């Protein structure tokens, strides 16, 4: 099992904008480099990418959650 950690502190978002579907749904497979969410900090948005491929992504952080650097965002099999 692998964990995707937040590289930054800020606010976590699961989709590119409120009217868009989430980048990934729970249970999706993920390829290395896939965007799985956004972190908003200092008036800009930063993509969070999976560093390794995996299956069955399970999000730990919810949409709009405050998040600290190094905090787990999702688990991967």
């Amino acid at each position, binding site marked *: 099992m692998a964990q995707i950690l937040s590289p930054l502190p800020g*606010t976590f978002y699961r989709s590119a904008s409120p009217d868009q579907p989430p980048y990934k749904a729970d249970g999706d497979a993920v390829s290395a480099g896939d965007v799985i969410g956004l972190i908003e900090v*200092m008036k800009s948005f*930063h993509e969070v990418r999976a560093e390794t491929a995996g299956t069955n992504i399970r999000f730990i952080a919810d949409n709009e959650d405050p998040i600290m650097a190094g905090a787990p965002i999702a688990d991967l099999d």
Partner: protein
Amino acid sequence: MAVKVISPGLSTSVQDLGRPGHYHVGIPEGGGMDRFATRIANLLVGNNPGAAVLEATFMGPELEFTQSAVVAVTGGELPPKLNGEERPTWESFPVKAGDRLSFGFLKGGARAYLAVSGGIDVPVVLGSRSTYILGALGGHQGRTLKAGDELPLGEGSGKAGLSLPANLRRAGNSPAELRMLPGMYWHRITEAAGNRFFEETWKVAPEADRIGYRFRGGTPLEFVEREQPFGAGSDPSNIVDACYPYGSVQVPSGTEPIVLHRDAVSGGGYMMLGVVISADMDLIAQLQPHTPARFVPVTLEDALAARTEQRAALARAEGHLAG
């Protein structure tokens, strides 16, 4: 004779101790937001305390050295890694040509300061090497670093293995306690609103940056009724334009206090509740978004005593490093 930027991090810029003397024409003092960490990083690598360093916000850069040097990382807990191997913070260590310096995830604080022996030798603009990003002035081409940048280094000779023990560094509290001197426009809010402002716990907003630290989560301020003076805007938080001191706490529309920091704008039309005292400005530099914080009212005598104590703490640290 350089440091190459492989990846820049989130917002990494060249900073020194700033360029005082131009605020009256709108150019802020600037410089490292955590001045203690800026000075100590330099002293650890044998530099003058005002040499230029890199300030990395929330996330570290990846750098490659083209020459041997001594480096040190201070400020927030952003663990340095030399060729992938972790190195301590607040301690100088050697690098050689071809070495890569990267950073792990931020473990505490918000901003790390990387000093390199000899200092980052960008041109001096208006007496300082600091980057004023909003004004595209100073530093490396007036901006935050980008991949591919090469930063020249000055001549230096640092000693590896010099460190500042934890008891000589400033520890933050949680919630952060920011001492504040109530000021000129305090009379604009009701007594109940003033009491609540100090009683409530606020949280750092994700928008906080080098210009100002915004806080939210407290109750909006109630203003004392008045007829708007000539020249002031229509919002009850508006005033006839005034100078904004460094550290001043403005509350646009009475909702979210903003503490102006080192790249502050120099004036405008929002009333200020007071100023965060100079001794606590370094603490603000190390607050991550969503960190709880309280404003604590103090007197001018308290503020001056805190400044004296802060200078004594800096002198103790400098004394330790001078051996």
